[in-house]
Structures are given as structure tokens and as C-alpha cells.
């Protein structure tokens, strides 16, 4: 238990010297195609990206633009047709506990209690029961759900379930946290609270986050860097730095810098949507 807490603190300390920690994502000339011949569909065209350790990056784009596909390449669920993804120099070949994954919804094991969901990763990693238990306790406390440890996921609200999902993903101490529209199904107040708390956790851990969303406000509120993607074929069309100060409060959305960035994102997206629309109707 003590060892874990120390490790948490170490990570927090490492955070201050950003760039030295683990979690560098390298996407090299990755392309994903589905089907073949006349039915071939290009989900992602050749994309190259580098995400620095500890960076919070949002993949922003309309649905069907391939942002989830790109995320799934990093997660290891989708094998790129070309190119390669690597984490800290190690090529990604399959899903693994070095990359924590938070899904859009309903991804907790409904037959395991909240506690067992969070302890599952450490147990799979061969940690002793005592260590798995203390790790699960630590992370449940971090997301404020210790009181609900013995409940089943179905007894929790959507927001609480996602918090358990985040705790479960972090319990393996991954280098990278991958999030696929994790707050998309939540009501707006819950979402705002989840966003703030995610930023706090991120700040505490110094973990690299790759976050997929179609919500411009969400992307700008959370990210250091927003990658705007366009559809057919999916590719990154803009790489915007978000120079807003942290910690960020919801009120930031009315600040001039925020509004300017938002307008820019919307402009890029609307030009692209128009182009895609015309392409479809040709």
C-alpha cells in the first residue's frame, strides 16, 4: 500500500519536470483501410503524429471521421494497414495494460462489483491480493466512490460508472490514457464536473491523455493540443495549440482567447463538412 502511494507521489513529482516521464506516443505514416477492391473504404489516410509524455491531446472531428479508428490503432484494437504506432519506442501490436482505455459507455463488467472492476487489472497483472486491494481502494477514493465499492455497476448513475471506468483504467498505472468520447452520454452538468476532475487526475499523474471528442468546447477546455480531423478520408487537418492557462474553470469558455480558438475550430470543421458534403453529392 505504502509503495503504491509513494509511486503516485513520484509520478506527481515527475510531472513537474514534464517531458522526462513515460508515455510518448508516436504515430508513423499510419493508414487504415477497410474492405478491398471497389468496396475499399479508407478510414484513416497516412497520418504521422507525435504526442509528448504528459501531454493532453484531443482528437476532434465529426462522427465517422476516423478519430476513433486512430485511437483504436493506439489502443491496439485496430491494426493499421500501413505504418506503425509505438509507445516509448515499443511498437503496438495488441491491446495491453500499458495503455488504459476508457470507453464511451457500459464497459464495466456488470457481474463484478465496483471494487472488483477496479481490482481486476492489478489482479490480472499478478499482483497479490493485498496489493490489488490497496490499489483498488486508492483509485476508488481518488474518484470519490469508496462508498460504492460493494455496489454493482448497474446500481450507479452514468457519471459514476464512468468514474469507475477511469479508476479501473488507471489502476494498472498505464503510461497513456486513451479515452473514446467518455463523457458523450452524460448530461451537461455531469460532463462539466467530469471534465474538471479528469484534469485534476491528469495533473496529479502526469499521464499522457489521448481524448476523442466531437465537442469543440470539451476539446478546448481539456487539451494542450487539439488535432482537428476531417472525414472521407480521415486525416488530421489542423494541429492547434491551446495556450489557455491552467487550472481551467468552466468560465474560461467565455474568455476571448477561448472564443477565438473555438471560432477557428468551427471554421475548419465547417469548410471540411461542406467539402465532404459536396463530394458525396457529386
Amino acid at each position, binding site marked *: 500500500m505504502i509503495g503504491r502511494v509513494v509511486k503516485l507521489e513520484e509520478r506527481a513529482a515527475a510531472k513537474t519536470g514534464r517531458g522526462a516521464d513515460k508515455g510518448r506516443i508516436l504515430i508513423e505514416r499510419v493508414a487504415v483501410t477497410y474492405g478491398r477492391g471497389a468496396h475499399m473504404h479508407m478510414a484513416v489516410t497516412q497520418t504521422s503524429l507525435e504526442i509528448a509524455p504528459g501531454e493532453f491531446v484531443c482528437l476532434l472531428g465529426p462522427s465517422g471521421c476516423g478519430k476513433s479508428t486512430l485511437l483504436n490503432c493506439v489502443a491496439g484494437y485496430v491494426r493499421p494497414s500501413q505504418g506503425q504506432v509505438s509507445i516509448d519506442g515499443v511498437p503496438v501490436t495488441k491491446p495491453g495494460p500499458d495503455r488504459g482505455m476508457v470507453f464511451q459507455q457500459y464497459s464495466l463488467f456488470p457481474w463484478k462489483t465496483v471494487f472488483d472492476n477496479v481490482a481486476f487489472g492489478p489482479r490480472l497483472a499478478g499482483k497479490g491480493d493485498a496489493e490489488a486491494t490497496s490499489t483498488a481502494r486508492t483509485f476508488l477514493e481518488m474518484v470519490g466512490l469508496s462508498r460504492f465499492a460493494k455496489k454493482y455497476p448497474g446500481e450507479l448513475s452514468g457519471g459514476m460508472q464512468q468514474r469507475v471506468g477511469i479508476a479501473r483504467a488507471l489502476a494498472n498505472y498505464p503510461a497513456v490514457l486513451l479515452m473514446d468520447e467518455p463523457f458523450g452520454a452524460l448530461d451537461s452538468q455531469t460532463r462539466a464536473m467530469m471534465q*474538471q476532475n479528469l484534469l485534476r487526475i491528469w495533473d496529479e499523474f502526469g499521464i499522457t491523455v489521448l481524448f476523442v471528442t466531437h465537442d469543440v468546447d470539451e476539446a478546448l477546455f481539456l487539451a494542450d493540443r487539439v488535432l482537428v480531423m476531417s472525414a472521407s478520408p480521415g486525416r488530421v487537418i489542423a494541429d492547434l495549440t491551446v495556450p489557455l492557462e491552467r487550472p481551467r474553470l468552466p468560465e474560461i469558455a467565455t474568455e476571448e482567447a477561448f472564443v477565438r480558438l473555438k471560432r477557428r475550430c468551427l471554421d475548419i470543421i465547417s469548410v471540411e463538412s461542406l467539402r465532404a458534403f459536396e463530394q458525396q453529392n457529386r
Partner: protein
Amino acid sequence: MNLEAGRELVAAPQSSWSDAAAAGEGAGPDRPAHGDDDDVSLAVDTSARDAAMALARSWSLRAAALLAGLALWYWAAKIHLDFYFRFDNVPTPLAVAEALWRHAHEAKFYIHILISMRRIALGYSLAAVVGIFLGLVMGRLQTIRDLVMPYIELLRPIPAVAWIPLAILMWPTEESSIIYIVFLGALFPIVLNTIHGVEQTPEVLVRAAESLGASRVQIFWHVVLPAALPSIAAGLSVGMGVAWFSLLAGEIISGQYGIGYFTWNAYSLIQYPDIIVGMLLIGVFGTLSTYAVQLLMRPFLAWQRRTR
């Protein structure tokens, strides 16, 4: 509430998602559809009473329906009702009760029951083990599925009775042929429901397990099997019904013991009340054993009841 929580958060980042915040959340906007236990407990007093009332009402209606049926049967048998179907050879409920009382004092009667139950126990347990195993493997491995499925498709529609001649020829003893028929009857619903359950496994849960570091075997134990359990339980329930159905077919045609034999023998010996005694035994034991299966499965499905 959340805006305030947000300000608090910045002032004291460590405690923002504390349990206290979680408790407060119960009354706040982060509490959509699924509800919470806090105000449910307020409602428990009245809703528990309502539930008890509903249950009492439900059971008294059931008892009343049964009593009405008995009365109708008594009346039809007493007046020898002859309206398309004939009641003149049907014994009254009293005659049946009398016969049951008489048999209850004979050791042989219990031997019939015990032998039937043993056949069910053997045939059904074999079917459960083989059926769940086959279903899980077929659900996960396409090759095995392609190899086994044609047999299941072909053999499933053959009723238990049709198996009897071949079963007698194939198996060394009459007992083993009857157990075989019970086994076959229970097997198909169990296999098919298990396959269905495995197919129901949400892909996102498999992915979640993969990203947490689970191997294929671990995914099978921690994800596929529990996801299939509700469907397996349904298959086991249906399988028990079919097992009794098949047992009776087997016992009527062969054997010297068993409830089926007892029932059919009563017809041959013109002991009409015994026919109904046998039928009622089948009904009662069939229901009880299906209920026992459901009871056995309950602990494994606790999460489902809590979730609803």
C-alpha cells in the same frame, strides 16, 4: 451545485471527488436515469407494504383458480359430463386423493418416484455438463461450431419417443437407454442457449478486458462465461422441462419402474384414479426440479437482480 463544486475543486483539489462530494451528488444533477439508494430508502416503507399486498393478492388469486378448477373437475366427473369429450370414466378428485393416500403407504410407490428422479438426475447432469461445455466451445470457436452444428440441427427435431427403439438397440440395459433419452432431451436447449449466451457477450467488455491485460483464457472466465450465464440459466431451466418430458416417453414404453410406467400401467390395469396420481406427480416433480435449478443458479445471477 456543480459550479460550486467546481470552485471548491480548485481551492482544494485533493478533496473534490471525495466521498462527501459523491454523497452530495446523490441529490445533484449527476444522478440521471439509474437512480440512487438515498431516496429509494425513504420510499421503502410504503413500497415494501405495497409489494407484500400485491404478493398476497397474487397468491390468493392463484389458490382460488386452483380451487375453482378442482370444483369444476369434481362437478364434471360427478354428473358424468358428456359434451364432446366424456367424463364418465374420469375419476373424481376425491377418488384420486384416496388413491394417493393409499399409495403413500406403499414402499413400491416411492421406488417409482426415486427411480424416476435418479434417471432425471443422471441424464440431466450429463446434459448440463456436456451441453454447457459444447455451447461455450461452439460459441467461441467457429471451426468446432461448423463441425458440430449440423448434428444439432439434424437431431434436435427428433422427439424423444422416436429415439426409443434405437436407444433400446444401442444401449446394454433398459436403464441406460432411458437415461440416454433424458440426456438427449435436455441437451439441445442447454447447448443452444449457451451458444446464444456466448454470442451475447458485448464486444466492448472483451476489449476492456484486453486492455486491462487479460489473456484469452482469462477473458473466457471473467467475461464470456459470466456474460453467457443468464442465457445458460434459461437453457438449464428449459432443459429440465424437456428432461421430464423425455423421461416419461422413455418410461411409458420400456421399464418396470418409474412414474411414467406407473401412469401407463394404471391405464392397462383399469386403475383410473392412478392415472391422475401419476400425472400429478409428474407435474409436481417437474415444477419442483425446474425451481431447484433456478434456485441453484440464483447466486450466480445476483448482479442481474441488483441491477434491475
